[in-house]
């Protein structure tokens, strides 16, 4: 799916294609809980979530939002070129939120025969509220 991207094709400032996900449904939390094995009821049970202080009920697994960011990254840069990927969970995501992932190249260097790019990535909801910030490194092939 991700086409080969060459080191020569990107520059500092090059933007990653924007990914807009469908609005999150409670069902997405249940499916992700089963897939990931994270059955913390904070993510699937409104009564439990309210009892521990979440006034609107269940909140989305942070790792599902990181998964959206990972999708945006590896739909652009082939998974096999990804060397490091890290995020900070900056805000809580809830059912109904529409997550958009954006990113851009912030560094580019060749060292020891490896052509490395570093990109920053951000996931926001429909109001622009930041949910996840992070970065990744990828080693890219050259045309030469």
């Amino acid at each position: 799916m991700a086409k080969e991207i060459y080191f020569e094709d990107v520059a500092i400032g090059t933007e990653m294609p924007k990914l807009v996900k469908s609005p999150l449904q409670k069902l997405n939390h249940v499916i992700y809980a089963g897939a990931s094995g994270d059955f913390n009821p904070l993510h699937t049970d409104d009564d439990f979530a309210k009892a521990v202080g979440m006034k609107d009920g269940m909140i989305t697994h942070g790792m599902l939002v990181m998964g959206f960011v990972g999708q945006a990254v590896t739909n652009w840069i082939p998974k096999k070129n990804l060397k490091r990927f890290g995020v900070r969970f900056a805000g809580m995501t809830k059912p109904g939120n529409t997550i958009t992932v954006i990113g851009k190249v912030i560094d580019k260097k060749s060292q020891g025969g490896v052509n490395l790019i570093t990109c920053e990535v951000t996931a926001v909801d429909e109001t622009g509220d930041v949910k996840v910030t992070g970065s990744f490194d990828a080693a890219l092939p050259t045309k030469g």
Partner: protein
Amino acid sequence: MADHSKVGKEYAAVQWEVERGKIRELARAIGDPDPIYVSKEAAIKEGYKDSPASATFLTVPMMWSSSMPVVITDLAINFAMLLHGEEEYEYYQEIYPGDVITASPKVAAIEEKTSKSGKKMDMVTIELLYVNQRGEKVAKAKSLLVERK
């Protein structure tokens, strides 16, 4: 509050046989349409040996093995006050269906911090270095857990 005396402690190894169906299921749960996670043929066409584990797959052995709850309980962290602060992966080679990956969770650091609003928090860093059935390093996972106090 987190037990600060346990910095450096290593826990029982997580061992996990990677199943093709779990790679596909996680991609589907995320809604990632990339066919490499579903079809071996599509993956081979794009230069993989088989369907690779996706970028955030390492959450699966951690959660399904119940390793993280064991660590959190041993560190005396209050689940109700726990937040996932950060997550980071380093990738050394692809993880494929049939691989058996193993890692021991290690408490890399515990630090107390004070938020802007003056609330104290314990910041707990857990690291796992995964090796495969051939003893090759495949990936490192680092989780930052935040316990509000």
